């Protein structure tokens, strides 16, 4: 079936099998491998992307369900060479170690900050419930999101 998705601002048409998952479309057909696959069972959040501004686990969305939507992946956040504040602060605050969870974390955090420009640490922890990190112990991730929110308020 033919579907049309705006990926990081660029309208693109794909011919996919109905069973194609959005995460596979992004990685294999669109060549955007920044979206990671870990658990494949809707638990870990590594595959999180924004669909019409909302964080979704792309391993549990059919590409067909995204037809007509705007999808943002980690590749779509930076503005040229200028990192997005979330990317910058994950770097500054050491919000990552292996980096596998990072794209998903950042996109979930993106929705969180969009709806709450000044989240408390507790709100951040609640907001990233659906993203699992096996390395950091979360503290630096919370710090990075908090710092990014502050930077974006400026």
């Amino acid at each position, binding site marked *: *079936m033919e579907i049309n998705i705006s990926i990081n601002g660029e309208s693109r048409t794909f011919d996919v*099998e*109905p*069973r*194609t*998952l959005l995460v*596979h479309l992004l990685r294999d057909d669109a060549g955007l491998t920044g979206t990671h696959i870990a658990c*494949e*069972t*809707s638990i870990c*959040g590594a595959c*999180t992307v924004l*669909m019409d501004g*909302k*964080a*979704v*686990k792309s*391993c*549990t*969305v*059919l590409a*067909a*369900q995204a*037809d007509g939507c705007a999808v943002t992946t980690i590749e779509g956040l930076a503005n040229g060479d200028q990192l997005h504040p979330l990317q910058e602060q994950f770097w500054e605050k050491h919000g990552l170690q292996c980096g596998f969870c990072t794209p998903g974390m950042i996109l*979930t955090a993106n*929705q*969180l900050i969009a709806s709450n420009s000044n989240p408390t640490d507790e709100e951040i922890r609640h*907001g990233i*419930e*659906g*993203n699992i990190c096996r390395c950091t112990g979360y503290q630096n991730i919370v710090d990075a999101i908090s710092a990014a929110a502050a930077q974006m308020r400026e």
Partner: protein
Amino acid sequence: MIPASFDYVRPQSLEDALAQLREHGEDARVLAGGHSLLPVMKARLADPGVLIDVAGLEDLSGISESEGSEGGVRIGAMTTHAEIEASSLVRGKCYSLVEAAGAIGDVQVRNRGTLGGSLAHADPAADYPAVVLAAGAEITVVGADGERVIGADDFFTGAYETALRAGEIITSVRIRASAVRGSSAYLKAAQQASGFAVCGVAARLALDGNGVVASIRVGVTGVAATAYRATSVENALMGSAPSAESIRKAAAGAGEGVDALDDFYAGADFRRHLAGVYTARAIGKAWIRATGK
């Protein structure tokens, strides 16, 4: 993990969706948010030949004040958990539904999953069943024989089983507004890994001018194979002016005699015990809200 092959159709109207369901019969499944159905299909525990995506249908969407003297709220079946969580209209009419929606999974799950999908799936550990039972919600469904309304008490018939007939689609859920001196609450003990309810209790009550319980309903999910009403608790408190002590005493009966689920995470006795504890807490919270204290 990729599901087995299927055909995907996106009907443009409810009539079209019903026609598609009729045409494909047993081989077709309705697709809403996909957050119960797709995991099951990826695990190859289900392999429908046709998915009928109803998520975008106008007739199944939106939250509005429902007509009728009691001024309730009508929630379209395709309303997402996130939309319910954020709705001030729903909060005003049925606080516990907002609490249940906010307690489901995580942000990503709440952005995709829908009220109608959750009710149709009827997971024994899902959150909404407790609330719709406590609220006495009316579930409107439409099928080949037209529309009918199913009361929450008659809707859940077993684990993953409902009163929905083949080819029927849930269109909306109607909940009457809380009484002036009334409110509700939902609380759950979540399974640590999955977040689903090991025990979830919704309580809804109304007080008369003297602080006497004029109506009360309690719904319990996660404890048994099917969500149920704790009628003995309701009967014990009906017509009395409650106190923290009387609520605790009455609530202890919420798990009594229940054929409880039993797994490595929570044994049957523990689940029955949780039912009592969470029933007391949920009633207490609804009572405090109702009295405005």
